């Protein structure tokens, strides 16, 4: 559903990203991994069109991104930012409802969808609290509910971009969130590209890993294939120990 060809992103003559070819299919969860400054966020920003590509093309459902009409693209491409700067005192549920901006729903449907996605993201219990008074993790989940509402009228499989969705969440919420995303992939055919930091979470939830280093895609494939102790040593400069759990999944410590 998403294909990236000859993508080159430069800023002030410095190469930020260089991706000759990459693609993903509907229902796939991709974990983007790499050290700080490897270009993970740049990749997200480029795919969602915030940063212009110097050369190359990104196609969603075989149509180059710039050719998509705005509101249709909004229904098929959702972005969860790392942090949001909203400082006006909206209620949490009002923030979620803003996700309906590109949609065609009546008031009743919007109210129901708001409740549905807030329950799914475990935010419904503070629906009436003011957004600026929420903690970082709570805000992030409210924003996720907003983005999921935004994608709820997609006619074809939607693409969801997550910029470090687990960074502000506690352990329980991290797994709740990744389970939700995973089930969206499996049941609703979502394609997801998510920046992660925890290699074991990538192992457990991702279908594929894209390993970035200095703006280049140095490895891609299934998590156990890519995340070998030698590779981890090479990329992060840390030698992990490899274990296997009772289900035979590999664990890096």
């Amino acid at each position, binding site marked *: 559903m998403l294909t990236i060809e000859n993508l080159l992103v430069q800023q002030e003559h410095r190469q930020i990203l260089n991706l000759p070819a990459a693609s993903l299919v509907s229902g796939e969860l991709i974990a983007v991994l790499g050290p700080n400054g490897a270009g993970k966020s740049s990749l997200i920003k480029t795919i*969602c*069109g*915030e940063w212009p590509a110097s050369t190359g093309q990104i196609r969603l459902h075989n149509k180059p991104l710039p050719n998509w009409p*705005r*509101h*249709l*693209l*909004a*229904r098929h*491409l*959702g*972005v969860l*930012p790392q942090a*949001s*700067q*909203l*400082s*006006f*005192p*909206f*209620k949490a*549920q*009002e*923030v979620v*409802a*803003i*996700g*309906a*901006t*590109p*949609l*065609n*729903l*009546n*008031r009743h449907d*919007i*109210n129901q969808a*708001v409740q549905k996605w807030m329950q799914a993201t475990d935010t419904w219990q503070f629906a*009436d609290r003011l957004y600026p008074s929420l903690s970082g993790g709570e805000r992030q989940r409210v924003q996720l509910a907003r983005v999921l509402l*935004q994608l709820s009228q997609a006619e074809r499989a939607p693409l969801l971009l997550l910029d470090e969705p687990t960074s502000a969440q506690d352990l329980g919420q991290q797994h709740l969130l990744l389970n939700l995303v995973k089930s969206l992939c499996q049941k609703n055919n979502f394609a997801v590209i998510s920046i992660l930091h925890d290699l074991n979470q990538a192992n457990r939830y991702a279908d594929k890993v894209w390993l970035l280093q200095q703006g280049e895609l140095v490895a891609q494939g299934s998590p156990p294939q890519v995340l070998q102790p030698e590779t981890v040593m090479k990329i992060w400069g840390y030698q992990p120990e490899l274990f296997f759990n009772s289900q035979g999944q590999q664990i890096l410590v």
Partner: protein
Amino acid sequence: MSYAKYLPASLHGWRRSIWLVMGMLLLVTVLLSIILGPMTLPAKQSLLSILDQFLGSELSQLNVFQTAIIWELRWPRTLLALFIGALLALCGAVTQGLFRNPLADPGIIGVSSGAGLGAAIAIVLLPASFSYLTTPVAAFLGGLITTLLVYRLAQSQNGGTSVLILLLAGVAVAAFSGAIIGFMTYIANDMALRELTLWGMGSLNAANNTSIWLSSMICLCLLVFYQLKAPALNAFLLGEAEARHLGINVEKLKLQLIVVTAIGIGVAVSATGIIGFISLVVPHLVRMTMGPDHRLLLPLSALTGATLLLMADIGARVLLAPAELPVGLVTALIGAPFFAFLLIQQRKRLSIL
């Protein structure tokens, strides 16, 4: 856009009663504005006179002189206060949304002084016979240029606007305009000088048919246009990138809002001079009670702004009667302490920026 239909259930009851309360307050204030002034008129007879005017009846027992006071002086002035108050509050609310910053008021960031500068140049340097046309246009251009300039200056790396630079830019623009306006005053002839002084202090006593028509038309247009953009403005509060991902043409929206707001401020400034703080205080009060949703904030700010400016004008007429204070003085007297209060409230946030 479907989001326009969404409202949290908890707001429905509230919403109806707030409109009723504000509407009643507006009517009472209008009546007070008709009967209060250097010469107090009998309330009941004045009310009848208003009925006479609209129904063609002859119930009122006011004498010719009293009727003239109502229809020659107080009624036009009341109308102008309503439209300008609404216009200022609307432009203030939108400017704050546009800058994603509750302290961004057209007066404080220098847009009003820019518009004032344009108007001053038009009054002093351009032929007086066309001043009804050239003054609003020049005020609009002055306002537009300063808005664009300040917006560019205050834009920071992460896409937001910096409060500190915003306020400093306002200081710089105000000082610059002040100097040029001073120079204009210096070289002005007597007639232009009188006109300059009039709006320099912000006063509603220059109400005439042209200014009432112009401000009412612009007020109506802005109300409709802003209301159409209200859902987009809400999305814009999330951040520029987020709004873009929601399918909004952000660059176009920003340009439209800047131009339209500059027109609004330009018209307001050319009709009444610089009246500060309405555009800052009113959206704040509304936001504090009703939340930041622009679909509600904008029309309610217009209603509250109209009422508040009219109240201030009644104060300006009555406080030192028979002498009259410029209404700009009254709004500044109330507004400046309020602004200080806001600054203290926001100090924590400011120190981060």
